[in-house]
C-alpha cells in the first residue's frame, strides 16, 4: 500500500511542476494585455496557484497601512480558496478522464481514525454480552415497563434553563417538568420510586446557563453526570416548537464503542419509549465523537420513492461530556463510582488519541 501511495504522490508532484512551467510562459502575455487595454474582464489564462497566494501574502505582510494590509490579506485568502477549488477540479477531471484506473480517494487521518486501541472495546464475546444484557437496563429492553421521566433543575432556574426543560419535555415522551422546590435529589429518588417514575433528569446551571446534566436511572441506578454545553433552543436555530409533534420518536445512538460507551447508549435509549411511532417521522440522535455526545432532533422525509431522505432539524440541540458513572442511585457522599474522570482528567486523557466512549 505504502509503495503505491508514494508513487501516486510523485506523479501528482510531477504534474504540478509541468503546469507551473506553462503558466510562466503565459502569464507575461496576460499582464501586458491588461496593462495595455486596462480591461478588467480580460481572459485570465490559468487558475491561481499556491505560489500566487504566498506571494500576495508576503506582499500584504509588508504593507505598512493596516487597512490596506487587511484588505490585501482578504484578497490573498480569496485567492487561496480559488487555488484550492481549481486543484480539486483538476483532480476530479483527471479522475473522470481516467475512469476506473483513477487512483483511490485518499482518506484523511483524523484523531478518531488513529484512535488508540482501548482494552474495554466491545468484542462481542459471550461472557461480555452476558454482562451487558444483565445490567440495570435489562428490564427496559425486555419491555417489562415503559419509561416515565421527571425533568427538573436546580433551585430558581433562569429563563433559558426553564425553556430548555420545556423543550426536553416535548422531545422525550411521557416526561414531566417539575420545579425543584428545595427538594434534595435523594428525597426525589425516594418519591419517584414510589410514584413509578423510571428516570430523573436534573439540569444544573453554571454562570446562568444550563451547565450540567444528571441522569439517574431508577430504581437501582446507575447515575450519570455530564457536562452540558452549547445548548441551542428551537428559538436559536430559528424553528418553531409547534413543529414538534407528540409522536414517539425513534432513537439513534452512534459510535459508542467501549463498555462505558455501550452503557451510556443503553441509558439514552431507556429514556424513550421502546416502540416509536413512525408516522411522526421524528428521530432523536445521540452521536459520540471524540467523547463528546451530540444531541440532535430531526424530522425526516423520504424523497424520490425512498431513494433519498430530507432532514429538518427541530431542536433543541446540545452537547454532553461524561464526567462520572456512579453505581446505584445518586449518592455523592458514600456512593461508589464505576468510572470517574473528575480530578484525574490529566492522568486519564494522557493522549489526544485516547477516547473512553
Amino acid at each position, binding site marked *: 500500500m505504502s509503495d503505491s501511495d508514494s508513487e501516486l504522490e510523485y506523479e501528482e508532484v510531477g504534474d504540478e511542476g509541468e503546469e507551473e512551467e506553462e503558466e510562466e510562459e503565459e502569464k507575461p502575455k496576460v499582464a501586458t494585455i491588461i496593462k495595455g487595454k486596462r480591461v478588467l474582464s480580460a481572459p485570465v489564462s490559468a487558475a491561481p496557484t499556491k505560489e500566487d497566494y504566498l506571494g500576495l501574502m508576503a506582499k500584504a505582510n509588508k504593507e505598512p497601512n493596516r487597512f490596506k494590509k487587511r484588505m490585501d490579506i482578504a484578497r490573498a485568502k480569496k485567492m487561496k480558496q480559488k487555488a484550492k477549488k481549481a486543484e480539486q477540479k483538476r483532480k476530479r477531471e483527471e479522475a473522470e478522464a481516467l475512469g476506473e484506473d483513477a487512483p483511490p480517494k485518499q482518506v484523511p487521518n483524523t484523531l478518531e481514525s488513529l484512535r488508540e486501541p482501548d*482494552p474495554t472495546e466491545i468484542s462481542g464475546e459471550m*461472557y461480555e454480552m*452476558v454482562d451487558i444484557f*444483565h445490567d440495570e437496563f435489562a428490564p427496559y429492553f425486555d419491555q417489562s415497563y415503559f419509561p416515565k421521566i421527571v425533568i427538573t433543575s436546580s433551585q430558581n432556574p433562569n429563563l433559558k434553563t426553564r425553556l430548555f426543560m420545556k423543550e426536553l419535555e416535548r422531545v422525550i415522551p411521557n416526561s414531566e417538568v417539575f420545579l425543584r422546590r428545595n427538594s434534595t435529589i435523594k428525597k426525589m429518588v425516594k418519591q419517584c420510586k414510589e410514584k413509578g417514575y423510571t428516570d430523573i433528569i436534573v439540569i444544573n446551571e453554571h454562570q446562568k446557563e444550563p451547565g450540567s446534566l444528571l441522569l439517574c436511572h431508577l430504581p437501582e441506578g446507575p447515575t450519570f453526570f455530564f457536562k452540558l454545553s452549547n445548548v441551542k433552543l428551537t428559538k436559536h436555530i430559528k424553528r418553531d416548537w409547534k413543529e414538534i409533534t407528540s409522536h414517539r420518536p425513534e432513537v439513534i445512538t452512534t459510535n459508542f464503542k467501549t463498555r462505558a460507551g455501550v452503557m451510556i447508549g443503553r441509558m439514552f435509549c431507556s429514556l424513550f419509549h421502546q416502540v416509536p411511532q413512525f408516522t411522526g417521522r421524528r428521530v432523536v440522535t445521540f452521536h459520540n465523537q471524540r467523547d463528546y455526545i451530540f444531541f440532535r432532533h430531526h424530522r425526516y422525509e423520504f424523497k424520490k420513492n425512498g431513494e433519498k431522505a430530507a432532514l429538518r432539524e427541530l431542536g433543541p440541540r446540545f452537547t454532553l461530556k461524561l464526567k462520572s458513572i456512579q*453505581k446505584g442511585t445518586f449518592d455523592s457522599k458514600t456512593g*461508589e463510582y464505576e468510572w470517574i474522570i473528575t480530578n484525574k482528567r490529566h492522568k486519564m486523557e494522557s493522549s489526544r488519541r485516547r477516547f473512553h466512549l
Partner: protein
Amino acid sequence: MECNGVNMAPEIMKREDSSDTNFNVYVGSETGFLKGICFGLETPMMKELSDYDKSKKPVPIKTLSWTDPNNRKDLLVGLIDRTVKVYNTKLRAFTQEKRVQLSDEGESQLVSLSQLDDKYLVGLENGKISYWNPADSKSTIELKAGNHLSCVKSCPQDSSLFVTGGKENDVKIWKLDSGTTEPIWKARNVPHVLELRVPVWVQDAAFLPQTTDLVAIASRYGQLRLYDTKMDNRNRPVINMEFSDHPAMCISPTRNDRQVIVGSAQGKVGLVDIRNYGKEKVVHLFHGFNGSVRSIVADENTPYFVSCGLDRFLYLHNLNNRSPVKKLFLKSRLTGVQITKDFLAQLVNNSDDLQSSWHNIDMSVLPGAPVPTNAERELIGGPSPKKFRKSKVTS
C-alpha cells in the same frame, strides 16, 4: 469455544487446553462468574471457570476465600443469595454447592464467608453470624452483631478471632470459643469537637499480620482507623486518619511492617504507613484506577499486590518500586480477588516473559510507568528504593 461465537480480545488469550498452565489469581465477578488468571505468561491468560446458565439470572459473587489459607487448594465462593460453592483448583471444577439455611429464614444477603475446621463462618447483612456446619446444615453457634453488617474478617494468627463492623455498627471483636454470645471487645466512637455524634460505617477491616490485637479498618466516610485492643485508651482508635473525601472501600495488610493498602470508591489507592501513632501518613498513591476498588490482596512473599473493582480491571502493582505491572480487562464488575500460594514461583519462572510484556503491553496501557531496570532483583524482593537511598546517605 468457537460455537459460542467467541472473538478473541486483544490482550486476553484463551486456550482450549489449559492443563499446562496454573492460574495464580482467582477473581469473582458481579455476573457470578469465577475467573482464573495466569500472570507471568507473555500475555496474561484469563479463563472463565463457571458455566453460563441462560435460564437463570446471574447472582453476584460476594466473597472469595481459601478453605485453608496455608494450603490454598480449595476456593470458597460465596454468592450473594447465600449459595456456597467450593472450587477445587487441582481438579479445576466446583466440587460442592450448598445454600446456607439458618433457623429463621429471611431474605438477608450474604456478607462474608470463611472456613474454620470443616465449618463455615457465615456473616449475613442483617447482622447474624453463624458457625455453620455444611455436613448437616446446622449452625452450632449463632451470634448477633447488629444490623447493616458489611464485613466479617478472621484473624490469620488466631483463627477463632474475628472482627465485625457495618453501617452504624462499630468495630466488634469476637472469639468463637469464648462461650458467650457477646463480643470480647467493642470499639467506642471517636469524639466530636462539639460533642455531636460522628457517623460510623465500617466498610472493611483487617488484622495486621502476626498480631491479634491490632485491627485496621476502612470507613465508608473516608477514614482509615487503627484499633489497639491492648492499649488503654477507652477503646477508641489509636489512629484516625482522613484518607480521602470519598469512601474507603477496602483495606489490606502488606508484608511491609505496619503498612496497609487502602482503596477508595473513586479509584484512589494508597500505601499508608501506620507505624507511629499520630505520625501516620500516605506513603504513595498508585495510579491507573478508573473506578471503585472492591478488593485488594497483597502477597506475603513477593512485593506485589493485586486489586480489582467496579471498573472491570484487574491490576498488578509492585510495592517496592511502586510501579504498575499489569492491567487486564475482565469484562464484568469484579467483587473479590484471591491469589495462590505459589504466586511468587510462577512469576519468577516466567520472569523473562514478564519483563518482555512490561515493554510490550503495559507501557501502552498504563502511561508513565517507569521501566524496571533489574526485574529479577525486585522479584526476589530487594530493598525498597527509599530505603536504598537512605542507606547511601548515612554511609
